[in-house]
């Protein structure tokens, strides 16, 4: 059966607890380095004043998006973008719900406009002067797979390079207990619908059923993968970091996986 969607990976960005960027992640995966102590995500695409004030979700998403676009060599301004997150900025949601319960008329207007699920897409398009389409999506626990399917669909349908960023931050407060996200993680991919001999090809096909997660066997990677829905990208990130052709299944919805053939550049 031929793949439903073929896209070429022109750029990758990643931030995980212990890996401040894609290069650091590759070094850890290759066994040349150990997970370190990372600081705040480096969202250098944002202007300095925005970077200081930006909520964690925006920093995380903009940091990985910036890495991926830089690697791709493409202009961010021309890239349609899909920002995926299961839960958005849970710290702001926790603040909003706590404030609304006690002193609703004192709600911060800045927190409110930062609470929208498309805040990272908004800040990103403003910072990069991007007038292309931007989206903010959630697929709940299967957010990464749903976001990857959406971004690859957009790339092939409109014949355009597309930026995908999937991010989730750690949950806090009573909400955090419900979302059970224990740490931050984000990944970004620049996906091209055009064949590129130097890029890894992803052949993506929806496939009924959920096969469950596939542990990598590495304790650090598997703990990151279990920490939040965006981190379900870990098996794919692992394959990309090792530059290894492989086949993966990634959950994209209830009773729906996407089958992903990772094909190395010839």
């Amino acid at each position: 059966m031929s793949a439903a969607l073929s896209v070429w990976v022109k750029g990758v960005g990643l931030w995980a607890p212990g890996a401040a960027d894609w290069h650091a992640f590759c070094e850890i995966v290759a066994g040349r380095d150990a997970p370190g102590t990372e600081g705040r995500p480096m969202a250098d695409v944002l202007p300095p004043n925005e970077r200081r004030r930006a909520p964690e979700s925006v920093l995380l998403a903009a940091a990985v998006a910036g890495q991926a676009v830089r690697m791709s060599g493409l202009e961010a301004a021309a890239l349609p973008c899909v920002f995926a997150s299961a839960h958005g900025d849970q710290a702001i949601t926790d603040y909003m719900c706590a404030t609304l319960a006690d002193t609703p008329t004192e709600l911060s207007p800045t927190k409110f406009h930062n609470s929208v699920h498309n805040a990272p897409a908004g800040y990103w398009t403003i910072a990069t002067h991007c007038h292309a389409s931007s989206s903010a999506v959630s697929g709940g626990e299967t957010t990464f797979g749903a976001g990857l399917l959406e971004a690859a669909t957009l790339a092939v349908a409109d014949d355009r390079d597309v930026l995908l960023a999937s991010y989730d931050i750690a949950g806090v407060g009573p909400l955090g207990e419900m979302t059970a996200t224990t740490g931050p993680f984000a990944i970004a991919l620049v996906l091209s619908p055009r064949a590129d001999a130097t890029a890894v090809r992803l052949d993506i096909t929806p496939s009924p059923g959920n096969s469950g997660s596939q542990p990598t066997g590495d304790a650090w990677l598997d703990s990151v993968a279990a920490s939040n829905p965006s981190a379900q990208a870990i098996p794919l990130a692992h394959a990309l970091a090792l530059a290894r052709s492989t086949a993966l299944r990634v959950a994209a919805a209830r009773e729906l996986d996407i089958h992903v053939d990772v094909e190395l550049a010839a």
Partner: protein
Amino acid sequence: MPHPMPPLSIRAYTATSALGRGLDAHADALRSSRGGLSPNDFSSAPLDCWIGRVAGLEDEPLPAELAQWECRNNRLAWVALTQDGFMDAVRDARERYGASRVAVLLGTSTSSIGATEEGYRRLDHGRMPEDLHRPVLHTPHSLAGFVAAAFDLEGPCLTVATACSSSAKVFGNAERMIRLGLIDAAVVGGTDTLCDSVLFGFNSLELVSGEPCRPFDANRSGISIGEAAGFALLERVTDGSTGPLLIGYGEASDAHHMSTPHPEGLGAEIALRDALARAGIEAGDVDYINLHGTASQKNDDVEAALVARSFPATTRASSTKGFTGHTLGAAGMLEAAITLLAMRDGHVPANLGATTPDPLCGPQMAWTAEQREVRIALSNSFGFGGNNACLAFARVGEPA
């Protein structure tokens, strides 16, 4: 510019808002220019404003088998799904194509955050109370998860949450997936319900009016927030297709500011041009535009100027937020349904609420209702973060 797209058939659609439940209730209210706004009796602390509230949701629990999804937002979605034969149409599509070939692609701004707010109002020793210990509710994906579960659908399932453009953009998601053969049908639409987050949130930005909203009025004073749910079933056009068509859509970003639109409406204009290009039509082909028209100072300034400079006077335009309030993430779908009704009934809705036209408005504005043939129509939806969408529809039998 994108290439023209093959039109999609809208096999069924429905809407529920402050105007009532289902299409006939909306058509009746629009025909008689009777709005649905009422003084705010919803927020957990007094807030002097008007709202578009759907009556009776408090007394209508979900069916027992869906009880884990119980919350106001999913109740409103359920009420909407049970109107206009929509459930039967979706079950029929599932039967014809299979559960994994029908997608659920829904827009929402706040989903069931009202349930999360409620949990925080009555925390149990600092934790979510037992009856709200339901993780499926405390996520933006609650609505789409609920609808997929209600129909036992197993295709792609995605929430689009781009504030007030959310449930317009899902038409684009569906078109792409159908065109590429990933699916055969899609349930699109959206739901947003009244909750403290949006009432106090928009109040904190000083965007909420103390009176019923007056879109495009020179003396407008802000938005009125409403709640709504609406859904449409999209499929490929076949020889036997009846019903209206989705003929185009456009999406673009302002790249200007998080909570105010681009002063020249740049993103809105790109979305409009994109929609016209996909539809293979020109501005002069458009008979009616349902405007975003929130009654905020800046949105209406920008949108009035965009319409005035882009369309001939024969194109009629109105905002229907004076009828329903601004239903946020549900507005795209609600106003798509109103646009489809305008085509069905040959009735251009009034721009309810305005008494003194903003001088920026052009001759396109339908200040009062008009009986007139509507063959091709657009619906605008613009959101926070500079997120713009425009949908294009054709009446049945009209070539795109």
